């Protein structure tokens, strides 16, 4: 079973085709980079995979589950249990502390408090922020925020992490550290990762790189 299977996905906004037949697969624990200029359709593809947007045609399967068969609740469950996202701007919940941000997805899935506490501690430790666990987002540096975001992404033990420019808002030293962290968690937990990026630097941790342009991945045929 593949972690992610995207088959001939198309998507248009009005008359503008944004995705013109994209196919890609990720094996379990496999990491791939998705590159391309602005407007090439990367973000739309990511949204479709994350279940925030729906493709016009084509099939997206995550851990063997086809997104097309899921209703809104099903998609919510998918995001709560299977896929996590790491964002360029971190998107921590500003009113929650680092620890609470990490805990939040587990609360959503209804994991018991004792287990939650244990797992939160482990995750925080894993991303190297034990000393900052009680801090509020606005008290954290960019790198620290991204570490919290990664810990939060790991909280649900996902099969797939979608990372949208995870280093895009960080200086290069910090970016390197975040990449190392991503690589190590992926290795350790066997989580597949699709990293959208502008940066060649990122491909360092990725086995494969997909280049996107005008709604297709280079080397693939456009649909229709």
């Amino acid at each position, binding site marked *: 079973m593949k972690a992610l299977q995207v088959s001939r996905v198309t998507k248009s906004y009005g008359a503008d085709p944004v995705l013109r037949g994209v196919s890609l697969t990720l094996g379990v624990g496999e990491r791939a980079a998705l590159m391309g200029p602005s407007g090439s359709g990367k*973000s*739309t593809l990511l*949204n479709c995979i*994350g279940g*925030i947007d729906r493709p016009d045609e084509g099939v997206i399967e995550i851990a063997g589950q086809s997104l097309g068969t899921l209703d*809104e*609740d099903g998609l*919510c*469950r*998918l*995001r*709560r*249990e299977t896929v*996590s*996202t790491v*964002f360029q*701007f971190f*998107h*921590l*919940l*500003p*009113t*929650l502390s680092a620890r*609470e941000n990490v*805990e*939040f*997805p587990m*609360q*959503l*899935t209804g994991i018991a*408090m004792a287990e939650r506490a244990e797992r939160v501690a482990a995750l925080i430790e894993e991303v190297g922020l034990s000393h900052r666990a009680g801090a509020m987002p*606005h008290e954290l540096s960019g790198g620290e925020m991204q570490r919290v975001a990664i810990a*939060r992404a790991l909280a*649900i033990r996902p099969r797939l992490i979608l990372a949208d420019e995870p280093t895009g808002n960080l200086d290069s030293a910090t970016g390197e550290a975040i990449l190392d962290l991503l690589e190590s968690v992926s290795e350790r937990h066997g989580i597949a990762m699709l990293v959208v990026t502008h940066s060649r630097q990122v491909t360092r941790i990725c086995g494969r790189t997909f280049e996107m342009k005008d709604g297709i991945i280079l080397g693939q045929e456009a649909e229709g």
Partner: protein
Amino acid sequence: MKGKETSVAVGRLLWTRFVWRHWRREPALTLMLVAILALGVAVFLAVRLANKAAVTGFGMFTESVSGESDFLLRPKAGLLDAAILREMRTVSGHAPLGIFPVLEASGVFADAVEGVMLRFVGTDLVALRNAANFAAGGGKGEGVSFSAEEGQTSPLGVSRVVYVGGAFAKARGVKAGDEVEVIINDALVLLTLGGILPDDPNRAAVPENLVLMDLPGLQALAGRKGRLSRVELRIPPGATAGRVREEMATRFAGFATERGLILETPGDRKSSVTQMSAAFRLNLTILSGLALLVGIYLIMQAMEAAVVKRRGEIAVLRSLGVTPSQIRRAWLVEGLILGLVGSLAGVVLGRLLAVGLVGAIGKTVNTIYYETTSSAVTLERGELIFSLVFGIVASVLAGLVPARDAAMTPPAQAMRQGMQGGGLTLLRRWPLGLVFLLASLGCAMLPPLRMASGTVVPLGGYLAAMMLVFAASILIGLLFRPVAAALGKGRGEAMRGYAASQLRRPEGRHRLTAAGLAVAIGMSAAMGILVASFETTLTSWIQQLLKADLYVAAAGASSVTNENSLSPETWKRILAVKGVAGADKLQRYTISLEGKDVFLGGADYNDDASRFLQLIWIDPPAEKGPGALSGEGREQPPAWVSESFSRRFGYEKGDVLKVPVESGSQAVEITGIYAEYGNETGTILVGREFTSQWFKDERISQMAIYTAAGADPESVLGAIREVSAGLVARTNEKLRSESIRIFHQTFAVTYALEAIAVIIAVTGLGLALAGLLLERRNELATLRALGASRRGIARASMWEGIGLALAGLAGGYVLSFFLGWVLIRVINPQSFGWTLRYQVPWPSFAALAVITLATAALVSWAVGYRNANLKSDREE
């Protein structure tokens, strides 16, 4: 000069390119903002209009007998002799002066003896025409003539031809020439309707209960031959009117002093009449204050939301070189325009609301004071403009703080990514809240303000109440932490925890919303405390007071101003009814003491000593037995005065008081002070043997009857009713339940207004949450990315709303205990002189809390559900 032009140009640019486009892009939000404003203004206006209508109902007629008179001459007690008119013409000499005699009497419809009280006004119907000439200023023939049928009785002289207004005719379905059966005093009278008085569009409508008659006719009908209630003086217009008015004021002031009469302007009269409804007006004042404050909170909250929402844009404008003052001005202009539009809408809405309220208030006023119809909402142009201006000023003022906040936004490059909030800092300064609290306590200690006119204004009390409200608005911030802790407890539910986390770090909006709620709840609950205290006190007073078996009064006597009374023949026949063992009798007069109206009662407690215990004593007399009011062995007749009288005039037990009576004045000695909640004007009670001498009057207005042992009260009641058609007889239970019913009716409108305040506050809560969610739309996107469902987000919103409502309720109730205390212990005794028992209506408090929480939960959930899928900034 150039700078100024640029500034104006920038202002226009900011307006057309930003403010206006925001509005156009988000019409729903703009509409909401306008709606909030409109609601605030509407409630304010409605309450004011309703208040005014009630007051107009009281004061109107004194104005309108002769149009607008310059002076009134009236006796301190009893009536005037008509012979005084000739003397008055002599006093005025050849000066141009219209002298219009008036007699007033009261009556009821024969088919509704407990219904509307009719006010009979007798005046010279011929001379009244000359007053019309004054008004016309030139006696042009603008009169509308209508002819009476041939052979019809003259409306003049000792006739029974009357004139009524259109409202009367409509209500009774009568027309000119029809006959109406009424009861004046205890006699049944058949009146002929001579015509319908047209309403003047420029003046208050002719009150529904007004009956106009030629003076001699009313004198005959009311048994007041040759007597007058008052004389109105009117100076015609012209170049020397001012000089003449001064001269007449001097001459008639001298005349009044010499004769022991009262000379006053209709304004004086109106204010003294108005004084009578002080309790009710206080009620309304508090309520309109409530509407005002809640309105301001709503406006502030809405403006603040707009600032926060456009913070990024403001930051960009700042980096492009727009100055803080230009930003501030743009916001003030925005506030002004929103205020204008909202206020206009509010005025329309408020006018509609008032029509509904006036009915309710009119009923209330009728019940307790005059059985009068409060006029429809009239003379309101001033009120409309006032409310409009209020709305605009309030929205500009409410916009001041957010505007300052906007202007202080740093340029974009200095702003941290995602920086939000800021907002109201004032509400975060909780020590300031403590200062207000202390100031409030200080104000509560202040003595009342005694105006030159004799009106007592509990200024300190009002100030204390205001300070309390400020204190509560600020201190409410301290409640967020405990409320958040309570909500976050258990940390089981992700969305509840998330909601709690929002409240742990409240924004200005949260504070304003909770403060608005707290003020609405606090003031409503304080009213509740006042009403409950009033009710408890009154009920126990009634229980103790009403010990007789049957109560008989002249028709219409349940109203304070009723002048109907039972003739000696009638009451003697009642005493002779089989089964009647004895009766207490009371005749009541309105007299003017030290320029203020009070009641003088002539009480005849028959012979049973035990009944004296019925009064609740504040300062009991040494002697309470039979003859305690007879004054045997005393220099002056003894008098018992009510608590409100004692407070109003500052008399204590042992003081000697000069009471004006028809034939001059009489000294009485105060030997006891008792509690009375039936009126706030105050009562002086003396033996009826004295009043019957002083007023040459053997009539009585009420009697309390004790049935003989073994007699069936119901059958005695039936026999008494046979005596005369013009009396109302009730059993003890009936009177008690009537009294309680009247009480509840009086405060019915209070509940309605409270409901409106709470509805507005909860609406404000909904709007605040909608704004907060809008602001947090990036966060919502994150929540969705983390797998939160739409219902989950709705739940988070609900918990946040519940948290805010909890804070508002807790703060509101604490506020209400203080406010209730100020109302009952400070404002109430100072303005009416009533000692009330402090009583908290726990069940209704609980109900209010449950209703508020439930509506808050519902509204917040709905808002959350509706806004859960808001697109975030980062999604294309």
